[in-house]
């Protein structure tokens, strides 16, 4: 039985100012309620299928094809729940100390599957599988809501790529289109275009009736769109900066996380060698503004200025791209002090 008062205090101590978590079915779910997640789930399960999202057998809508020379990049992705340990090593390797207390919760994640959902094609992780395409391609994402125990509609909503309203993957109440309400057990195939203005790295996430809670639970991933024929970096890593808060996890304390893990040794340890082209894509995925700092390195931002601690907001992406020239063990972290010291940090290991 968690200490409810501690839960509330822990949360407000780390997230001042937020008045409510989300709005579901026309009702607010308040964060000062320790049962916020459960209540949100109950409300989400009661959300009825909007008329525009009905599974009409004869419904048709335009689906884009790849541009000449482009191809279909096909992914099979299911949403599912799983037990999630925020610190599998049980230690903070930076500060050399154990991480006490409970740290397992029920996460909602996207999992890459083999065609036809015949079998997993990778573990169910936070973030979900990274989707790759080049300009002129279409991303064809077969999405399945396999989180049947959650009992609520889910979606897959992309940033950055081009899509029609049907493939938006957003719940909009009675204005919801076909891809905005995928009930448990159902599949839907999203088709998105990689246009010239899609080049970059973008997030995707749940945008169903309970999107805020479900995104905070781990239902997010990244999309990488490159110019046609562009050489990929030698080292490429997506890093989501986010908090795992008690109202979401029902754990007694908040965790500052990168890719669902807290503290160096649990967060991704990135390996590179001198001379390699390194790209670190950093995306904010909570209610906070973060920044990203990696010791010993600088790079140019989009405006051409050299930076080493750019700001990254919710669902915003910054890319730190540089040629490795400074071998050593380096720390990377969010430089909001209350985040970095509490676990939003990891190792970057550059070998000679």
């Amino acid at each position: 039985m968690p200490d409810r008062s501690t839960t509330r205090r822990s949360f407000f101590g780390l997230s001042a100012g937020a008045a409510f978590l989300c709005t579901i079915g026309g009702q607010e779910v308040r964060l000062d309620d320790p049962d916020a997640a459960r209540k949100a789930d109950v409300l989400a399960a009661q959300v009825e299928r909007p008329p525009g999202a009905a599974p009409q057998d004869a419904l048709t809508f335009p689906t884009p094809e790849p541009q000449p020379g482009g191809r279909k990049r096909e992914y099979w992705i299911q949403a599912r729940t799983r037990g999630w340990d925020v610190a599998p090593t049980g230690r903070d390797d930076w500060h050399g100390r154990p991480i006490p207390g409970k740290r397992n919760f029920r996460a909602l994640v996207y999992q890459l599957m083999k065609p036809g959902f015949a079998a997993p094609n990778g573990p169910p992780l936070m973030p979900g599988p990274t989707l790759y395409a080049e300009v002129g391609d279409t991303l064809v994402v077969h999405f399945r809501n396999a989180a049947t125990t959650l009992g609520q509609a889910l979606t897959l909503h992309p940033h950055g790529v081009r899509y029609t309203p049907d493939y938006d993957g957003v719940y909009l109440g009675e204005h919801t289109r076909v891809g905005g309400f995928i009930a448990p057990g159902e599949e839907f195939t999203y088709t998105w275009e990689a246009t010239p203005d899609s080049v970059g790295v973008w997030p995707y996430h749940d945008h169903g009736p309970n999107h805020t809670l479900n995104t905070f639970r781990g239902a997010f991933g990244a999309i990488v769109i490159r110019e046609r024929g562009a050489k990929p970096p030698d080292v490429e890593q997506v890093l989501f900066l986010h908090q795992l808060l008690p109202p979401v996890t029902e754990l007694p304390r908040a965790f500052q996380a990168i890719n669902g893990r807290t503290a160096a040794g649990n967060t991704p340890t990135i390996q590179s060698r001198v001379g390699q082209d390194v790209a670190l894509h950093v995306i904010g995925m909570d209610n906070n503004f973060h920044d990203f700092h990696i010791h010993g390195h600088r790079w140019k931002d989009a405006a051409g200025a050299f930076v080493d601690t750019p700001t990254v907001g919710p669902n915003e992406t910054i890319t730190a791209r540089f040629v490795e020239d400074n071998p050593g063990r380096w720390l990377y972290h969010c430089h909001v002090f209350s985040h970095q010291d509490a676990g939003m940090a990891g190792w970057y290991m550059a070998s000679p």
Partner: protein
Amino acid sequence: MRIRTAAVAALAAGLLIPAGALAQAPSYPEPANPGKVVPKPKGKGKTRTVCKKGCKFKTIQSAVNRSKAGDTVKVKRGTYREAVKITGPKKSYLKLVGTPKSPGRVVLEGADKKTNGVLVNGADEVTVRGIKAQNYTSNGFFFVNVVGYTAQNLIAAKTGVYGIYAFNSKGGTMRDSEAYYNNDAGFYIGQTPAQVKPIRSIVDNIDSWGNPLGWSGTNMRYVTITNSRFYNNAAGLIPNALDSEKFPPAEDNIIRGNEIFWNNFDFHKGAPFKIATEGTSALAPVGTGILLLAGRRNIVEDNEIYGNWGIGVALVQGILLEKNPQAVDLVGNEVRNNRFGLDGTDLNGRELAYSGNGSGNCFGGNTGVSVTIPADGSTLAPCPFTGANTPNDGALGEMLSLAGEASVAAWKRHPHVAKAGFEPLELYTP
């Protein structure tokens, strides 16, 4: 092209009474639209136990009749001479459970008189586990007009049509089950309504052998068949398109990671079931691993395909369709990364055959391919491929000449490699 014309005419004549018509004989329920799924009942429900002596319920049907949605009927070992019907939404989420670890201990016996071992009609998400059904005039286990079902740890043998069968339904699971010596197909999912947000059917770890067809899939959709074995049938799997059922052709199915071998059972020469002389089972080219007979966006990948003396994987347009010309052409089917011939130790007669009909059909990453129709492999466009394929009348004519038992004369026989626990079945001997 006299041969081709004659062959098509013969096939069409044979299909005047197709398998689908058998499936809709008068004793069958009329198809209805499988509608919205009934919400799962709260709580565990009641459990009723059936046994031959000492139980309140002596028949499965009497226990089913007393059950409400979400209840469980447990059946103790024994032979039950009845045809169980689970009908209507008030029986949704019912669980009918025999002995899952040893399905042969609970036997439903049809004695060649009763129609279906278990018929689930209009009751969604019913689970049937741990039962053997045999000697029914139609099917062993039959799910129709439902949204979701689970068929697990079942055995279906010596039925008049199909072993385990789902028709006009959305979604469902068949797993860990076996079907043999059925008159038509061991397993069958057919007439799946097209859905924008489909509920997928998963078929995992099944064994189908000794049937004319290991798997029949007339107008089936959104089915994933994986981790299963199809062997010693006349033909392993035939996703197909027929006018006799709604919604042709077969679409969006995936046959992945299966073992498809030794499908050379010439049941025409003798079988422990009534031998059909017409319909798809009679026309199935004996010696075939997989035949896509029309279809769109079906994927055949990562399968082990060996020892089928006709053709390993064949694709031909909907030659049996007359009323649905829009469904004739093959579109967007992919045959990729399959392994043929078991590293050269157990060869197929031919590995790949394709008439070149349609568009967007492709072949890529397959290993062990040496003999094809056409011989020069000119129809086998590499993946990825968009645009029109290249029709080849010669290839089509050769494939049509292999229909039914006629294919046996054109077999390319090769020795089989020994396989522990399996014996090749070419001719049945009682």
